[in-house]
């Protein structure tokens, strides 16, 4: 059984196609993570502003992504937007956009949490040294916040990598879709293909995510003491 499965993988283009599918997955995750890391920091700073209005708006934005599942947002982006505005956007682009919006919200909350968890006397003693507002953030608050938020950020990245699996449901040809095409193709030759292919994809995802969550744990252990 395993033999025929391996044979299927290594005949023709199958393994290459699967890796190409994986590449799409990785590409989506990487772009989304990198961009939302930046936008998230900006959003996080915005959330620590004193203005009531800004606070409420930020909260609404955050809760929208907290409450409504990402898959729903993908559908809204994919079917809803197109049917209302009739614009042409690739599935992959939709996934990236939705992931960035989602990532910004979550990342922002992480940044806010990190900044607010800094003891007040840190900013007091910065001020007492005569640091200006900008200097206070640049030299004192942000460097400390970054350490506190790094583990959570990596966890968010892991979640985003995992969530790329939903892309298939709005027609993006990524690893899962390629896998399904292969299962369909091999239906006569390897009847147990779905076990092997889904198993393989399961493991591939694990291989992508495990090092990340390991790293997060490490940093957490290192910096909590």
């Amino acid at each position, binding site marked *: 059984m395993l033999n025929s499965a391996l044979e299927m993988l290594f005949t023709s283009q199958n393994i290459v196609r699967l890796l190409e599918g994986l590449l799409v997955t990785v590409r989506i995750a990487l772009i989304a993570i990198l961009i939302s890391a930046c936008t998230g920091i900006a959003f996080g700073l915005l959330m620590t502003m004193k203005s009531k209005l800004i606070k409420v708006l930020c909260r609404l934005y955050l809760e929208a992504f907290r409450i409504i599942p990402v898959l729903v947002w993908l559908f809204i982006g994919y079917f809803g937007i197109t049917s209302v505005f009739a614009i042409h956007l690739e599935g992959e682009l939709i996934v990236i956009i939705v992931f960035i919006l989602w990532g910004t919200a979550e990342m922002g909350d992480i940044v806010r949490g990190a900044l607010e968890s800094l*003891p007040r*006397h*840190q900013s*007091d*003693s*910065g*001020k*007492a*040294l*005569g*640091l*200006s507002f900008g*200097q206070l953030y640049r*030299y*004192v608050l942000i*460097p*400390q916040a970054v*350490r506190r938020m790094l583990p959570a950020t990596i966890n968010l990245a892991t979640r985003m990598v995992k969530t790329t699996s939903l892309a298939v449901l709005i027609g993006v040809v990524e690893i899962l879709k390629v896998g399904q095409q292969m299962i369909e193709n091999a239906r006569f030759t390897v009847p147990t293909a779905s076990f092997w292919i889904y198993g393989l994809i399961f493991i591939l995802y694990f291989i992508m995510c495990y090092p990340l969550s390991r790293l997060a744990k490490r940093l957490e252990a290192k910096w909590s003491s």
Partner: protein
Amino acid sequence: MSNNSISGGSMSSEQREILLAIKDLYKEYGGKPVLKGIDLQVPRGEVIVVLGPSGCGKSTLLRCLNGLEPIQKGDILLSGQSLIRGKVDWEQIRQQIGMVFQNYDLFPHMTVIENILLGPTKVQNRERSQVMEQAKALLERVGLFDRMDAWPRELSGGQKQRIAIVRALCMNPEIMLFDEVTASLDPEMVREVLDVMLGLAKQGMTMIIVTHEMGFAQAVADRVVFMDSGTVCEIAGPQEFFNNPRTERAKQFLNIFQY
């Protein structure tokens, strides 16, 4: 305005230049008054120790002097210049006022020397090498020259507080404020920090010190200011205050430390 009537102490403060003057300072937190009209004049070179029960407003007073808290009424003058009226450049003023807090407030992501250099180089834009000289000399004086490259977490509480003092001194402030800097330290460490402060006093630094260490207070103070529930109850020389307090509340307070 009326503090002269209750002021006392070994030296007459009238003869020296007044560095810091607090006039009828009034401060409240959300409607609850915490400082109810404080008057105090600090001549250059004087060491003032502020005593009083917990919650009487000692920390709040120091924080107001440094602009960390806005005040509702009154005025604060540093070298005759108001810190309240008109447009106040706090970043400028805070360079002249050094402050050390109860919690060890070193920045944990910087080494000792980086902590010390931050203010002088970034705020005062001074030459790094020149500040370095000064920092080394100060570290030497507090006995921590060899810990220059250590991280704050590698230091004991007493060492951290001594570094915090050096950090503030390195800005060349006119006046230093100390808020219970030894409150969470073990006795030996208390001693090493207080010794540094005694040294500063001897050198003529102007200081306002909030502390619960009565022995130290007696030894270091030029004048003792006793506060209770937001007002100054008594100002006296240390000898006089500890041996013969005038107010009933001060007597009660001192009783706590007697067995």
